[in-house]
């Protein structure tokens, strides 16, 4: 079985990896590249635990083949904080106690980043529908939604 050689950009850094033609990007990130912050909850695109950005677009990494990353830019949860500063979404999740077990958290934060990239001031309804592809079984979503709305309002203020 011949492995494919893929050149891509992950969290701003050029990266290369080898993968099988049928391997998912999720598997390549977790197993080949050691980026285990992206989680597998279902492998069928239903839970959002493996949310990543591919050229800025929100996708479940379990439904992307690893070779599709060739020449593209991938952003994972590991790429959100900069230096010693958390992303405002990460900070607000902590302040609002918006995680319990924490396994869905990276996917929610990446999906919420995609929302705030697309819309600076989302309503509660827009936030709920945008995040409807991410399952959380612990929180009932209340504190997650509050954290995202709070982060949005803080990022809007700091942008002014």
């Amino acid at each position, binding site marked *: 079985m011949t492995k494919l050689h893929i050149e891509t950009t992950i969290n701003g850094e050029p990266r290369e990896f080898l993968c099988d033609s049928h391997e998912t990007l999720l598997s390549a990130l977790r197993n080949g590249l050691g980026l285990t912050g992206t989680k597998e*909850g279902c492998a069928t695109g239903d839970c959002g635990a493996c949310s990543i950005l591919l050229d800025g677009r929100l996708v479940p990494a379990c439904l992307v083949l690893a070779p599709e990353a060739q020449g593209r830019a991938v952003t994972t949860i590991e790429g959100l904080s900069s230096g010693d500063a958390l992303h405002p979404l990460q900070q607000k999740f902590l302040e609002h*106690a918006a*995680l*319990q077990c*924490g396994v869905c958290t990276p996917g929610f934060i990446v999906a919420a980043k995609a929302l705030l990239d697309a819309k600076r001031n989302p309503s509660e309804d827009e936030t709920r529908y945008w995040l409807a592809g991410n*399952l959380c079984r612990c929180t*009932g979503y209340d504190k*997650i939604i509050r954290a995202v709305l709070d982060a949005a309002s803080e990022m809007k203020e700091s942008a002014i």
Partner: protein
Amino acid sequence: MTTPREFKYVGTRPIRHDGVDKVTGRASYGADVVWPGMLHGFVLRSPHAHARIVSIDTRAAEATPGVKAVLTGKDLPETTATIALGEAAIDLRDVGDNMLARTKVLYHGHAVAAVAATTIDIAREAAEKIQVVYEVLEPVTGIDRAIAADAPILHPALRTKGAASPGAAGPTNIASRLEFKRGDVDAAFAEADVVVEREFRTPMVHQGYIEPHACIARCGEDGRAVVWCTTQGPFVVRDACAAIAGLDPAHVKVIPSEIGGGFGGKIVVYLEPMAIALSRKAQRPVKMVMGRDEVFRATGPTSGSRVRVKLGAKRDGTLVAATASLWYEAGAYRGSPVGAGAMCALAAYKIPSFFIEAHDVVVNKPKVAAYRAPGSPIAAFAVESVVDEIARELKMDPIELRLKNANAEGDKAPYGPKYGPIGLKQILEAARNHPHWTSPLAANQGRGIAVGFWFNAGMNSSATVILDTDGSAAVVTGNPDIGGTRAAQAIMVAEELGIPVERVRPGVGDTDGSGYTDLTGGSRVCYATGMAVIRAAEDVRDQLKARAAQIWNVAVDAVGWENGRAIPPAGTEKAEAMTVAGLAAKMAHTGGPIVGRASLYAPMAGPAFGAHICDLEVDSETGQSKVVRYTVFQDVGRAVHPGYVEGQMQGGAAQGIGWALNEEYIYDADGVMENAGFLDYRMPVASDLPMIDTVIIEVPNPLHPYGVRGVGEVPIVPPLAAVANAMRDATGIRFTELPLSPPRVLEAIEAASAVSVGA
């Protein structure tokens, strides 16, 4: 009466200590580690719901390049061991059989063999080469079939345990039957002015944790094993692995990973002993990770049920009589939570005469596992629906009806003991006085209320508090942190030592690094393990006082303690109050390091009640419904970290709403689950729910130094009936079967309108 203690840290909302790791993706869960040289394990599962295993031929799999070990039930010893778990016990023979079938497969997805290979693809392909010859048997897919006279028998040796029905001495699928009674029920019903009787059904539902089961194990030539896994109970895993894999428990160490949800479903073992046995054969570490369909088919769920409830009341609303007949599916092996369901069913009410019977029924579906307040939500769905009907018959406010009959301190619980201080009346009064209860409803909306009860658990806990020379402290317990317990434990140490909560490092120990501790479950961690943490911190404080006494050359008893400082007795020369940091800096010269420890067995816990108000909007053209407002009232004793207490209340409510509206195991006639994925097993998503409001009521639990009660389980108990009662209010229809999914609701609405048109 003692003055209520004033707290400095308890009741605050510090950022959890494990939080940054979890929002940055650095935290390591079950499937996140790689061990050098590790193999990948894959499980071959039964395509039949009920069949005898005639033969298994593994030769082709073993001959596949890259395959290092193949395992079948014959490779594991039979065990008769059990693990005590509160009042229940885990039968490890059944756990072992459930993990890997020996002679019969008892549900679709039951494991029959496992392969370890150098890649997961090779392991999967090799598993498909294993030849299993089955003699297929008729599946028993529900309670009605299981108890029919001509039903196929799952376990030929099974006999009904407990108060048996007449004539049930031979082979049966009814594993146990028990009764609770008080007073003369027939006479009491004869005196009732209003009697309502209904029969309810609920399907199996899954805990739905987002992280699938995962582990990695290595077992060396010396028979010593190390297991890394996602679990609620590392000590349970250790003892189960030893018994099932045939190892000395002294030679097994279990390291709990971060855990991505459990809700009771990550207590028993499904993979770990297999990974050990494969590793023992291959002499390399073996990693095993379940897919989501395996999680649905072969782990969890909780029981499907049939429950008949009859209540009698006087015209003034006084409940006088009750009967309840509970039938719960255990899945493939005995042990449904029907006993707990029977004990919880009437826990809220003073009813002078009742009779409750409870049946544990085996069926060809996965063996049920604990799920948040196991057994109680099913019973509450039935009882609280009938209470709602009684209120309607009497034209009485449903909160007033419940208040009139509510148990309070000193009343005898239906399951035996007298209640200590409980907050049932307080939560009902809070609900009555809350603006939600009297706010206007829009068109097509209805409002429902229901209450729920859970015992909560105590059991075994240990804690160690380690003081550092800089005056900071570490606290270690054996409870995996499933929802913020590290933060609560750090708050407790900060409170006792008077050091900032940020200077406490809370940690989860492995089975060698912490004293024996029962599982994370039973709403026991903040209560029982919290008590051990408080006592261990007190131990440190006592040692610090002794060091101060030594420095000042005074008697220990004369040393005071205020705000994190040792206070010298009045008149001591040249002595000034010393902080924890000041005393810690002198540890080396005053006797060496300071470690505080405590271990305890808490036989009792503070039981808890919750009340939920649900507003539901129903689309009569599609049967679709949506929760538009929801408020949770709960007596939590004392909220140590209110943010995570609210989170438990909200999360439990959301799970219960899912159970009420959408979730169900759907089986075909052959006993094959048809919806083993998140697309078709429909858990609530963010757009399904409104904000879930919480009202924390604090009636201190006298068994805990701060008054803490367990919090995690109660909130899943009321929603099933709260939602169904709201549906009744919105549509005029009493639904007795869950879930209230659009097709079921639409059919009932159309049937009701056909009747009214016909009339």
